[in-house]
């Protein structure tokens, strides 16, 4: 097999907070092949978003990448200078955020915002970028795209804004798109449309997609492979089909069981994983999931068992 488009090796990211150093991402390794959709699944605080932000080089001032490499097309993004990283962001790796309501600048027109990445990276004239913006909006199936260029974000619904965000992400035909819970803030009916659109468009351009979500239904339908994260670590990685047929990590099993089913008896209680998510400022020495695990043994508390 050829070298994957993105390979994350032993990535550790920590944040300095008032309650000590929080190890948000702890020795995470994963890879994404060209044209592939990788889903990263996990509960809030499991390190999914921080992993994504690390790939973008946007962990911020309080965060620090302690070790690891992020190889994108053979280049280590961790070692890259800010100016070089800027040329990659929005150009070769694009990101879609989870809040379409606030991810667009309220005082700029839609056209200006969609044209911006083209103007920034492709060095095209503003008029040309603007014309391309109209095409992009049409591509994400916004009706009457040309006439909507001069509208402001508040004229758009949540689903429409997420379409605009997708158009912006696609503007420079990136190799990799990172979608951080792109449908969390949307109506259920719109969610499917947005994901289908995202999937179609990435297939069209043969871009890889990292889909960050906590919705296992989304994963089953749209992902090729899945990485399950827990407590800043990867619990398990498998192809989507394998994961559903044969989950190996107890956390994955717990997640699967927590999905309400149409066939379960009326009035039966929903399954919930007992306990609380781990405190990342002081993780247990062994398996992070051990305190909540039904199958935990003594050894699990000392060192993480291999799967």
């Amino acid at each position, binding site marked *: 097999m050829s070298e994957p488009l993105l390979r994350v090796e032993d990535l550790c990211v920590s944040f300095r907070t008032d309650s000590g150093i929080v190890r948000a991402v702890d020795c995470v390794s994963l890879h994404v092949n060209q044209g592939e959709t990788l889903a990263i699944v996990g509960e809030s605080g499991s390190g999914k978003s921080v992993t994504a932000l690390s790939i*973008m080089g*946007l962990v911020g*001032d309080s965060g620090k990448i302690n070790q690891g490499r992020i190889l994108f097309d053979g280049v280590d993004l961790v070692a890259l200078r800010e100016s070089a990283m*800027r*040329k*990659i*962001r*929005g*150009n070769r790796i*694009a*990101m879609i*955020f989870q*809040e379409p*309501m*606030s*991810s*667009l*600048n*309220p*005082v*700029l027109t839609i056209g200006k915002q969609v044209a*911006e*990445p083209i103007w*920034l*990276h492709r060095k095209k004239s503003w008029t040309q970028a603007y014309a391309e913006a109209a095409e992009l909006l049409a591509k994400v199936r916004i009706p009457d795209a040309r006439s909507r260029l001069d509208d*402001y*974000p*508040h004229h758009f619904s949540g689903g429409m804004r997420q379409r605009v*965000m997708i158009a*912006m992400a696609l503007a420079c035909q990136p190799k990799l798109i990172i979608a951080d819970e792109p449908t969390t803030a949307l109506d259920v009916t719109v969610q499917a449309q947005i994901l289908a659109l995202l999937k179609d468009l990435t297939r069209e351009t043969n871009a890889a997609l990292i889909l960050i979500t906590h919705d296992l239904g989304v994963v089953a339908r749209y992902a090729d492979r899945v990485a399950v994260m827990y407590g800043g670590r990867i619990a398990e990685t498998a192809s989507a089909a394998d994961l559903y047929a044969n989950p190996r990590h107890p956390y994955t099993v717990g997640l699967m069981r927590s999905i309400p089913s149409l066939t379960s008896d009326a009035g039966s209680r929903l399954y919930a994983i007992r306990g609380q998510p781990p405190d990342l400022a002081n993780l247990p020495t062994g398996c992070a999931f051990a305190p909540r695990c039904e199958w935990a043994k003594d050894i699990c508390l000392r060192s993480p068992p291999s799967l």
Partner: protein
Amino acid sequence: MTVATSLLPAPAQHGPWVAFTLRLIREKPLGAIGGALFVLFFFCGLFADVISPYGMNETNLLERLQAPSFSHWFGTDHLGRDVLSRVLVGAQLSMLVGFLAAGLATLVSIVLGVASGYFGGKVDMLIQRFVDAWMIFPDLLLLIAVISVVGAGIPQIVIVLGLLYGIAGSRIVRGSVIGVKENMHTHAARSMGARTMHILIRHILPNIMPVVIVLFTTRVGATILTEAGLSFLGLGIPPPAPTWGGMLSGTGRTYMYLGPWLALAPGLCLTIVVYAINVYGDALRDLLDPRMRGSR
């Protein structure tokens, strides 16, 4: 948050300025009146040379200390100069100082506030401690000290007033920059590969414009008032230029009993202008700040 962003001033179909003015008249009539009065004074000042019925220093000793009449609407002073003409030229000087100083102040506030709020950390700490130290000194004291060293004159007054109010006002800009900086669209802009300067100009600045506009309008009022105070103390624009403050302290005070109109004319003008611009600024703030909408 989502509600707030969707309530930002909506540029309607028939031009955002027209729509906004209509909204101002409808929702804040007092503010609209203030704005109209201010515009009136502004144009009086702008065209003072054309509309003054007499020259500002045209003396006529035969008509000294005359009460207001049809030939002299605001009366005449002890040298027989037409008070209306002098008040009009005074408006020109006040507007000149007010706009230039407030403009400079706003610029200083933006530069300091944006740098402090956006970069945070050590930059913020350094700038804010400087602002703290600066604000310890009472405004007028600082002004008097500087003017007595460099001498009176329009450029000095504009620069000192601009710095004085600009440094203090940077606090307000800083606050709103910190708010906007954490908005998702700022992060989104960075994720698109935008430079810091690009983000500041295109994504931060337009979002703090409501605050900046209000800051500017209130500063116009404040600088006009402070300039009048300086002129009253004899440290403002030197005579024979007819500043409102100078008219109040000079002929206004000396001839208060013989010709009360001498003090009333510049005093009322000053009061009305400052009141008008403050009411207008308040109305602007209420209309431009989405959180204030619905409350009157």
